[in-house]
């Protein structure tokens, strides 16, 4: 599993490549833990280069999502390859975690979430 992360406007974007299963899901858990320790609660995980994910991988992403939400943020997913998207559909985890077609759409979601807060502060 390979990670590449970058930050855009308080949002952490994490690109994950490879297979995510019981043998290496702890690496993803560790990576998300690192992001959380940097007080980043707005996280986008780009799964475009993930070939397979088992329930261990799903559990780690759900754990990351719960932690972000606990601190007022969220963990969004984007660019899911068809087989990975199907896993989210079959398990109905697509009802729990927000999935977007592109990083741009996911970033826009965080921006719209912030908008009411900013206008609220201005008024």
């Amino acid at each position, binding site marked *: 599993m390979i990670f590449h992360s970058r930050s855009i406007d308080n949002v952490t974007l994490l690109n994950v490549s490879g297979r995510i299963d*019981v043998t290496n*899901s702890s690496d993803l*858990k560790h990576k998300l833990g690192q992001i959380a320790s940097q007080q980043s609660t707005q996280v986008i995980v780009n799964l475009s280069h993930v070939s397979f994910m*088992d*329930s*261990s991988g*799903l*559990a*780690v992403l*759900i*754990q990351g999502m*719960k932690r972000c939400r606990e601190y007022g943020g969220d963990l969004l997913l984007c660019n899911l390859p068809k087989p990975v998207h199907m896993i989210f*559909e*079959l*398990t*109905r*985890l697509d*009802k*729990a975690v927000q999935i977007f077609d592109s990083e741009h759409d996911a970033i826009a979601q965080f921006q719209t979430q912030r908008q009411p807060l900013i206008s609220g502060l201005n008024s």
Partner: protein
Amino acid sequence: MFHPNAFFSPPRWFETPRALIQNCIDALHSWQITHISFQPAQYNALPPEAQPALLHAQSTQKRTRADLTLLDDPAVQLESDVSTLKHELQLMQAELTQSKKLLFQANAERQKFSSALALARDLQDNLQPAGAPKVSGLDVCVRSKPAHEVTGDFYDFRLHGPNELVFTLGDISGKGMAAGLLMTMARKVLRTSLNVLARPTPDAMLDYANRDLYEEFTSTNAFATTFVGQFASERRMLQYANAGHSPVIFRRNAERAQLLLADSAPIGVLPENQSVVRQIYLLPGDTLVVGSDGITDARNEDGEMFGLGRLLQLVDAHVNQSASEIVDAIFQALAAFEAEGAQDDDQTLMVLKGV
């Protein structure tokens, strides 16, 4: 006898190198000296025949007195080599003894761990129902093949009233011991829900389990995909609710097998789950297959997954057979497909046939 410091100021010569060495040995003993070293200039000032002996003394300065040997004497050299070899052999023997001891301890630990796992496996086997209770209008078979000693898959059957069978099948995320521990909790909570809920419909049971287990599943980073069915034999009606579980296949007699997709997220994902109850009639010839993802995710030597397509085809192909024959056929197909020894996820399959 001279203190070693006195050897060189003024220079003091010995008749033979052996005499010099003997003096060293005596000096070490008398003055309780543990280390002797010689500066290169001092060393070079010695007669050539004494130099090899002192070279050895230098290189073995941390050894005991007995290690001071005369190297220019072939007989003593041989004795020294034998002594060194003996010493090394003793060290190796000591290491071997220590390694054997560690290996024995590791084996004992492993046996203890294996026994604990075997006990856990027995416990799970005893907790899982041996088979399905007999209910009129239904032929039921279930089989589970764990990937490891303990399984994260669970199933249960309860008779609710004389003509109603409640069954559950679930899969804890992850594998191994952690999943094995959580599955006993999940099954127990679902069983409890049947007793405490005023109207224990499948959706109410799932929502009860979700509320009860959300905290524990959050702290243990797990979730459970779960299918709950309730078959009323008099009306042949099956009510079910599906929290993220797959594969679930329904085949109406004389129609093609189709997937019954989940309606809500698995147990333990959202603080409040909105489960949905659905109903179908399970008439004679109709088949319901509930499996765990260890079946569809099984891989062959080329890394290809067994998949939902093959499972649907198998259900279609064996439609005229009994529940146990369908279970046999699917596990046989899996065994033929899956690479030897490659099973890395629990495989559980429940088949319910209307009769």
